C-alpha cells in the first residue's frame, strides 16, 4: 500500500484516497454548441498513458479535497501533487482551460 502525499494533509495511506481519472478534462464552455462527437469525447474518452500521467485524486477519507497529481503508470510512483488552486501550471500538461458552465 502506497503512501500518497495529500497537498493539504501530508503523506497518508492509499486507502484514504479515491482515484478521479485523468486531470484536465474541462467541462466544455458551451455544451450545447459542441458536436455529438466532441461531446462524446468529453464524456467517454480518456487517455490510457503508459508513463507519466496527470490525474485527479481525492483525499476522500481525510480532508475530502481534490488535488492533481503526476503519477507514472508503469511504476505507480507519484512524482508530484498539487492543490487545485496552485498558481503554478500543473506539470506535464498545459494550463487548465478556464471552464464555466451555464448558470
Amino acid at each position, binding site marked *: *500500500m502506497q503512501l500518497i502525499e495529500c497537498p493539504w494533509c501530508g503523506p497518508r495511506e492509499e486507502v484514504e484516497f479515491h482515484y478521479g481519472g485523468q486531470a484536465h478534462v474541462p*467541462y466544455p464552455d458551451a*455544451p450545447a454548441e459542441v458536436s455529438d462527437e466532441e461531446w462524446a469525447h468529453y464524456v*467517454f474518452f480518456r487517455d490510457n498513458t503508459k508513463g507519466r500521467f496527470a490525474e485527479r485524486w*481525492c483525499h476522500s477519507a481525510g480532508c475530502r479535497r*481534490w488535488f492533481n497529481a503526476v503519477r507514472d503508470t508503469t511504476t*505507480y510512483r507519484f512524482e508530484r501533487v498539487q492543490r487545485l488552486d496552485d498558481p503554478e501550471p500543473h506539470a506535464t500538461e498545459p494550463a487548465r482551460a478556464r471552464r464555466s458552465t451555464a448558470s
Partner: protein
Amino acid sequence: MTSPFRTAEGGRIDRGTTLEFTFDGQTHTGHPGDTLASALLASGRHQVATSVKLGRPRGIAAAWAEDPGGLVQIEEPFPEPMLLATTVELHDGLVAHGLPGQGRLAEISDSARYDAVHHHVDVLVVGAGPAGLTAALTAARSGARVALVDEQSEAGGSLLGGTDRLDDAPALEWVAAAVAELAGHPEVLHLQRTTAFGSYDDGFVLALERRTDHLGTAAPRHVSRQRVWRLRARSVVVATGAHERPVVFADNDRPGTMLAGAARTFLHRYGVLPGRQAVVFTTNDSAYDAALDLHRAGVAVEAVVDARPAGSPRREECERAGIRVLSGAVVTATQGVERVTHALVAPFVDGQVGAGSAIACDLLLVSGGWNPAVHLFSQARGRLRYDEALGAFLPAEELDRLSVTGAAAGVLDLAGCLADGQRVARAALTALAVAPPGEDRLPTAPEPVVPAAPLVLWRVPDTSGADGNTSFVDLQRDATVADIARAVGAGLRSIEHIKRYTTIGTAHDQGKTSGVLASGITAELLGVPVQATGTTTFRPPYTPVAFAALAGRDRGRLFDPERVTSLHDWHVAAGAVFEDVGQWKRPRHYPRPGEDMETAVLRECAAARTGVGILDGSTLGKIDVQGPDAAVLLDRLYTNMMSSLKVGSVRYGVMCGVDGMVIDDGTVLRLAEDRFLLLTTTGGAAKVLDWMEEWAQTEWPDLRVHCTSVTEQWNTFPVVGPRSRDVIGALFPQVDVANEAFPFMTWRDTALDGVPVRLARISFSGELAFEVYVNPWYGVAVWERLLEAGRPYGITPYGTETMHVLRAEKGYPIIGQDTDGTVTPHDLGMAWAVSKKKPDFVGKRSFARQANQDPLRKQLVGLLPVDRRTVLPEGSQIVELHPDGQLPPPPVPMLGHVTSSYRSAELARPFALALVKGGRSRIGDTVHVPVNGTLVPAEVTGSVLVDPEGARRDG
C-alpha cells in the same frame, strides 16, 4: 513411544519436560523447543505424508518453511489444514496426521481471536540471524525507532543450527546478549514467531505473529491467537537468510532424503539424529559441516559425494575423521520403499555419468548451494540478477526504503554477515538523516576458511531409465524434470508459462526449493543463459497465512459497519424483520403473530392506503447545502430548476451523470435563500455528497457553497394515509394542517414540548402524507407520541417492503432498482422533471445524443400478469411472441426485464414495473415473462397503477 534418535545431550530443547502428542494415531513424546518434525524424527519417523498426485511417500526434507515434504493436518487443539511439521511447535496434546497433499478445513467455527496492529518505525529489520541482529543493534544504538521481526521461536537464525563461535564463546551467547540489549532500548519492538509475509510500497510490510499456537490447549483465551502487524517503516532491512537448494536426481523424493543444512539444524537445535547411516551429496563446501557434525554425533557417514572434480579443501578434514570423500561423483538415484535404503553413486565427468554402485544408508543429505531469500525484495518490485558463481538470484538494484543484507544478499560467511548487517543499517540511518551510533562494536568471528568454488548443478542426468519422470523438481506438485521437458517441447519459453504448465512453484511452499531449480533446468533445456530465463514473480504471502488472521476482527457482525437509526431498539421490540439497505438495518415489515411477510405487507399497505401508517425513514440521505451560491450549484446538478424554489417549499429533483443517466433522486427543501436540505436515497447518500463536492471543487471552485452530510442529525418519519392529517393535527395543534394553509410540497417548523420538529408535506406513496423531522435524541419519544396520537385511527408501523409496494403502485422508481445506470429521466417518464429553461445542467447535452433519442429505448412501464396470480420474479426477462403465438427461434430477443414486482392490496392482484424496449408505445400489448419454465402473459400498462390522477395526495 521412545525417542531412539534423540541425542544424549545438547540442543535447545527442555529435556526436563516431556510432551505427549499423537501423530497418525500413534502416541509420541517430545520436549518444549521441539517442532512436530523434530519430535517425529527423534522417534525415527521420516515419512509423514503421501504426495498429491502420485501418492508417493514423502518425508521431512528440510527444517523450516522451505520443506516441500512434511505436510500435516492438525486435529487438536483446533483443526487446521496444510501446515508443515517443520514449523509446528510441539505442545502437549497435539493431534496431527500426515496429508495426501490436500487438507481439510475445520467444519466448526474458529472461536479464536485474531487481530491486527499498526506500527510505525524508522527501521524495520526482518530476520534475527547474524546480519539482522547486527543491523537491529546498530539501528537501536542510534536511538532510532526499530522493529525486529523473526519467524522462528527464538532469535539466532542460522546460528541456532550450527556450532559457530563469536568472541571466543558459543555464538548463541552473543545472540542472547544482543536480544537483551535490544530489550533495553525503549524504542525497539522485537517480535519472534513473526513472519514478514508481504512487502509492499513505501516501506509497508505485513507480518504475522503466531502468539498462542505454540501453547496448544494452554493458550489463554483472552490473547489473540495470531496477529497481523501492519508495519510502516521509513527503511526496511531484509535479513531473511538463504534457503539451501537441492540437486535433482531420480527418486530424490524418497523419505530420508534431506537438505544437508537441515540435518545440522535437527542435530544442534533439536538434539535429533536424522539417521544412523548417512551419505552426503554436495556441490559446495557447506555440506562438509553436516558430514563432520553428524560423524561426531555418532552417525556413520558412509561417503561425501562431491560433484566437483577437484573436490574441496575440506576433504582432508573428512578423511582424518575416517569419512570417505568421492570427488567428481554424483548420486544418481535412491533405492528403498518408504525410506531410502541406498544411494546410487556414480562418477561424474564432464557432465557424463559413469557406472555406479549402491551405498547403503538411511539418510541422504543433499546440498546444491544456497538460494538467497529475496522474496521480500522481489515483492517490492526489486529486480533480480542471476549470479553465475552462486547459481542463484540476487538483488540487482537498490530500492528506495528497502535494502537487503547477509545471506539474503549472497553473503554466506558469518563474519561477512555480521559486518554487512551493520553496514546496511548504517547506510539506512544515514539516508534517514539519523546519525549512526559511535560505539557499535561487532563480535569477533573466526577467520573464515575460504571455500572452494561451488559447482552449479541443477540435476543429475537420469540414468535410471525413468527418463526424468521420477526426478522431482517440485515435490509438493509432483512435478518433474520430465514435466519441464514436456513444457519446453510444447513450445513454452517463458518461465511464467512453464510454471503454469507444470504447476511448479504453485503449491503451499510457493517454490522455495523448486523455483530456482526450475529456472536452471529450463535454461539448460532451452540452451539459454539462466539470466535470460529469470524467475517467476514473487508474490505475497511468503508463507501461508490463514484467512482468519487476515480477517482479524472484521468478521461476523464486525465484517461491515452496521448502521441503525435511533429507533432500532423499538423496532426490535416491535418484532420487526430487518433487511440490509447498504449498511443500514431497516425494518422490512412488522409481522403480527401468525403472519408471513405477504400477509403482513398486505395489512400494512391497506393501513397506509385507507387509514394511516408510519415509517422510519431516517436512513434517507440528507445533505445540508449552504452558501450564497447554493442555488447555483443545485441548478447545475439537478435536471430541474431549484433556484426558483421558494423558502418553505419542497421540490422533487433528479440528478444525472454527464452521460445523461439518472444517478439519484429525492426531494429538496429550501430552508433559506442560501440554504437547502437535500434528501437522497438511502444507498446514494455518500455518492451524492461525493458528486456535489467533486463538481464544486474541481469545476466551479468560484462557487461559495458547502455541503455537509446531516443524515444522522435527523430522524424522518413519514406519516402516511388519509388519516395522517388527523394524527399530525392532533399532535401539533399549533400547526394549521388544512390543505390551503399547509399545501403539498411545503414544510413548516414547529415544536413538540419544546423539541424542534419540522413537518413536510412530502409523499412517496401518493397518499396524503406528512414527514416528521426531529433530532434523533428525541426520535423515540416523538415516534411514540405519533403512535399515541394515531391510535384512534389504527396507525400502523410499516417497513420497507410496504414502502416499496406503495411507491411502485404509484410508479415512483427506486434509483438503482428500477434503473441501472443506462436510464435517462425520459426513460422513466420524467420529462416533466427536466428543465427546458436552464441553458445547461449536468447531463443535459447528453439527452440530445442520437442514442438517447431512440424511440426503442427501454422505458419504465407497468406490467399486470394476466392470470392475476403470478408475482413475476424481479430480474425476469421479457419476451414477445410471434403473431402465431410461437416463441421466436433462439436467441429469443429480450425486450427488457422486470425491475420491481409485488402483490398489491389496492389492486387485488400482483403487478410489476419493468424496463421494456419502446415500452410506452406498447401500452395495452401483451408480452410474456418466462417464470419457472412457463411463459406468463402480462399486459403492458402505464407505470402509475394507483390513483393516476393524483387525487389522494391532498387527502
